[in-house]
């Protein structure tokens, strides 16, 4: 009897637990009713998005394949401009040599005219005071002596030399643009590496070995990413100030 009394509260406890579980189940079903449409929408969304993701993947693969070609084309531009610059420098050198030859010729001509003038003076003396011949000799002498050809030509030659030298200095732009292009190539290489890793992660395929040429960095030019071509001397002024300060501190 006493045992029966003890069992009754235990039974009542178990029943309340069962009801609790049933209540939980009911909540789950209710939640399920609400969540199912959401899951259905999600499935629909996945159906739509997967082809899009495949397109993106394929697009990334295509872009990755094209990057080495772009990098090579940039490297080709650098080579072409270097070749063209060398040709210009060769021509400038040839012009310099030609100008030096002209200058030497003019100096030689000046010496020859001095000799002619001297001979004319000798002839005038030997001919004696014959009036008509003296007048013509004087005229020839004046023509020989008064020629300004050498002075004016040498001034012109010096001006041309100065201009050709300025052309030479302007060709520093080739080195600077080569560094800028190398910096762009480096950037392309970095993006390509990232995209390649991404495509590899998605496809588990190795496209790098298939598409990347051995020399991707565009001729191995070592570059300053901040290289710029400017006519102002601002950067030089900054450098000079730092050098001066450094010397002052060290002395």
């Amino acid at each position, binding site marked *: 009897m006493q045992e029966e009394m003890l069992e009754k509260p235990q039974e009542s406890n178990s029943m309340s637990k069962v009801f609790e579980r049933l209540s939980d189940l009911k909540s789950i079903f209710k939640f399920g009713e609400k969540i199912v449409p959401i899951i259905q929408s999600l499935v629909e969304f996945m159906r739509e998005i997967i082809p899009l993701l495949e397109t993106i993947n394929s697009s990334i693969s295509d872009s990755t394949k094209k990057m080495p070609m772009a990098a090579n084309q940039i490297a080709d531009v650098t080579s072409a401009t270097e070749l063209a610059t060398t040709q210009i420098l060769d021509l400038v050198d040839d012009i310099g040599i030609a100008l030096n030859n002209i200058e030497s010729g003019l100096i030689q001509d000046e010496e020859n005219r001095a000799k002619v003038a001297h001979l004319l003076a000798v002839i005038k003396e030997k001919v004696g005071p014959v009036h008509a011949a003296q007048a013509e000799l004087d005229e020839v002498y004046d023509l020989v002596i008064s020629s300004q050809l050498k002075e004016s030509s040498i001034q012109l030659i010096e001006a041309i030399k100065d201009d050709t030298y300025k052309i030479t200095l302007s060709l520093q732009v080739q*080195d600077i643009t080569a560094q800028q292009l190398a910096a762009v190539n480096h950037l392309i290489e970095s993006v390509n590496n990232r995209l390649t890793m991404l495509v590899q992660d998605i496809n588990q395929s190795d496209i790098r070995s298939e598409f990347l040429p051995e020399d991707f960095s565009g001729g191995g030019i070592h570059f300053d990413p901040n290289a710029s071509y400017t006519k102002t001397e601002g950067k030089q002024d900054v450098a000079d100030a730092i050098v001066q300060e450094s010397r002052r501190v060290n002395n």
Partner: protein
Amino acid sequence: MALKFLVVDDSVTMRRIVINSLKNLGFNEYVEASDGRDALGKLSADPNINFVITDWNMPGLSGLELTKAIRGDATWGKLPILMVTTRGVKEDIIEALTARVSDYIVKPFTPQILKEKIETLLSRQ
């Protein structure tokens, strides 16, 4: 003794421009090198080199590493070294001076600046 320059740059264009400028200034003795390692070889082979003009960004041994190598050498340690480079930011210039370059030119340079720097360095010797 006549001045003999070592012109170090990986760009053929820049080497020719620097050499043309030197010739224009009346300096006709020079040796060329395409990077730092090549420059050290030229220095070893030619004891008459007494002035170095070097770029910074070069493959192999850079201009900065070349400067450190020269300064650390008993024979060439006191050679004037003029760095001619596109690197114009303050930190770079300080780094070059710490490596003990003698002076610093930022590209593109003018002949007047090159002349001034060479004359200043020669007068300091």
